[in-house]
């Protein structure tokens, strides 16, 4: 993969567009964008985007590989699906954003300190352990791996307390906690899925 990171991508060439088409979830839609900007205007996170989705699609077509993949813009997506339902060309923008983010992560060139990127990874690791998300561990992990550790933890302790009072947070979860029975089965399934996906991407010069 590393050689691909440094691969020379020329301007306004199909190479990066083709790479996205082959390797990014729903990437084959990028070519259909007509630059109307309705996605950009529909995103609830507004200014948080350095590059709006429609601009990212143009950047992909302009061959700006590194700028796109190292951007933190895709990580701004809150999966609200506003853009998808309004897009006049039916681009599944939410998924493309997730796909680009994942692809950047996979290539190891996603922004290192992007909090959502970290959280998304934590979430995945967390659910992978026992097949179900352990909110408490996830929360605590967050405070120390994403937030500023104790400070964040203290900031949120009142919430934790309130949730506990409302029986919506169980300290015991920290030890053991909910789990599915067939964890190993799940792991096998996911491993296989990963393997299949690797193969597909490798085939397309991943």
């Amino acid at each position, binding site marked *: 993969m590393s050689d691909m990171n440094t691969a020379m991508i020329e301007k306004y060439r199909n190479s990066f567009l083709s790479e996205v088409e082959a390797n990014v979830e729903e990437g084959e839609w990028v070519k259909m964008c007509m630059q109307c900007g309705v996605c950009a205007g529909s995103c609830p996170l507004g200014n*948080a985007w350095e590059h709006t989705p429609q601009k990212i699609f143009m950047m992909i077509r302009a061959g700006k590989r590194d700028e796109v993949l190292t951007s933190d813009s895709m990580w701004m997506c*809150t999966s609200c699906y506003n853009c998808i339902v309004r897009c006049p060309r039916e681009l599944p923008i939410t998924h493309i954003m997730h*796909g680009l983010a994942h692809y950047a992560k996979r290539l190891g060139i996603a922004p290192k300190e992007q909090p959502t990127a970290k*959280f998304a990874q934590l979430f995945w690791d967390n659910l992978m352990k026992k097949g179900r998300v352990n909110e408490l561990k996830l929360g605590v992990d967050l405070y120390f791996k994403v937030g500023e550790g104790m400070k964040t933890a203290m900031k949120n302790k009142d*919430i934790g307390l309130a*949730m506990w009072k409302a029986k919506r947070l*169980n300290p015991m979860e920290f030890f053991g906690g909910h789990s599915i029975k067939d964890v190993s089965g799940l792991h096998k399934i996911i491993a296989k899925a990963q393997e299949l996906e690797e193969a597909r991407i490798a085939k397309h010069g991943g």
Partner: protein
Amino acid sequence: MAKREYSFYPGCSSQKGASSSNYLVSVQTMCEELDIQLNEIPDWNCCAASIGYAGGGELPRLALSARNIALSEEHNPGQDIVATCAACWLATRETQERLQHDEGLLAEANTALAEAGLKLRADAPIKHMAEVLIQDIGYEEIGSKVKKPLEGIKIAGYVGCQTNRPFGIAGESYENPKYLDKLVETLGADSIPTYEKKVQCCGGALAFSEPEKSQEMIKGIIEAAYDHGADMIVTPCPVCQMNVEVYQDQINATHGTKFKMPVVYYSTLMSVAYGRSAADAALNGQVIPAKKLEEIAAK
């Protein structure tokens, strides 16, 4: 009226002691009243919501939901799958449709599932509980069960994102869905049809990682509700419910606001309206108590 049966996918957050366990309680109460039997999918797993994408690629994430669907097909054959959590519903239904429209993916998913001796047809309808209520049961029947109309309570219907987009409830618009308002009216309370934040995203996905961004969005949602004179907000989504409810103190601290807006589930409202106890309606699960509901429940 025959009992309705569904294959039920509760999702992580509604497990005992989890952030929306109160949702599950009120849903169960509501179902008892409506003569609905929920058959939990055995050994269901997390759907990865829409945030697992950093670690999980497309196929692995699809595989998660595929496993749940396969289990449902095996253990609850012929039953529609119903989810109460917007994210669970969305992920499962999305997986369903993607696999239906892409034979290659379906084949790959099955190859993966085979590792755990599962297989999948991906043909059962996947419904959100709101769909069950509106499409399978209907306002009329919902209304007919009301014992204690929620009179004098003004409720802002907050639909949020994922219950509404990209699938939404049949016949409802993405920009201005009306079903929560209709439901509120059906239960005898006052709705706010012009509530402009109905479908505004609460930033759930960023609540942990980038709270300042999400809390900005939550602030708008609550403010608008106050502007319309709402007593409480009702929502069909656990992520929305938690986000909008639990950060109000922090928002007050940051922005000097005085928010104390209860945020409840439609199932909470229904349980109360159907004359059940505060406990059955899981009113004790409110971080911000819904006093007006407690009063009615106490009557």
